[in-house]
């Protein structure tokens, strides 16, 4: 089975991103939305965690990244998707786990 994980909390204020990373299996996808998109930015300790996790696909929701003005600061290897891409990810994976 494959799982889509969504994270909507900032990794700098909440442990949610770490919890998700600790439980996500290789081959699954982590989609960063809402305040979770800050995890996709470069130049901080979270970026290293993503860099060191090669077996998980990281995506960020474009609209949320743009709202926060970070679309020019995204770390390498993170795929930018729109809401329809979000829907496609939900359809492509067997289950969706929202890390609230």
């Amino acid at each position, binding site marked *: 089975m494959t799982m889509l994980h*969504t994270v*909507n909390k900032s990794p700098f204020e909440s442990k949610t991103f770490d919890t998700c990373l600790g439980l996500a299996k290789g081959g699954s996808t982590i989609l960063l*939305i*809402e*305040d979770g998109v800050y995890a996709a930015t470069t130049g901080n300790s979270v970026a290293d965690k993503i860099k060191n996790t090669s077996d998980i696909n990281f995506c960020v929701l474009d*609209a949320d990244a743009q709202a926060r003005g970070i679309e020019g600061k995204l770390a390498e290897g993170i795929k930018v998707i*729109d*809401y*329809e891409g*979000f*829907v*496609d990810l*939900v*359809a492509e994976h067997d*289950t*969706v786990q*929202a890390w*609230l």
Partner: protein
Amino acid sequence: MKIALQINEGPYQHQAADSAIQFTKAALARGHEIYRVFFYHDGVNNATRLAIPPQDDRNITEQWIALQKEHNLDLVVCIAAAQRRGMIDEDEMKRQGKDANNIAEGFRISGLGQLIDAGIEADRLIVFGA
């Protein structure tokens, strides 16, 4: 594919309420069926018809109502959560002896079984919350 949504937070306070709408619109645009939208916890507050957001701001409830009309969505407000938070429809108003009601047209109040049913019948269940 049949997709069901659960919404745990009220409008404006958390973006979760907005994300759920944007996701729903995109899912419909991609040709999926929205099996049900279940409003739970503070999410029940999305169903009020008494809100008057600033004119230059979005109106979250109106957006749900418009989507409901166009796509015949099943918008279910959890009765237990709604009772705690003062969200009631006309039937509940009469049954509970209250003097007003505030649920917008297009939403229906029902039990938690509707959430479990959505989990069983839909191909995917996705939760928006905080």
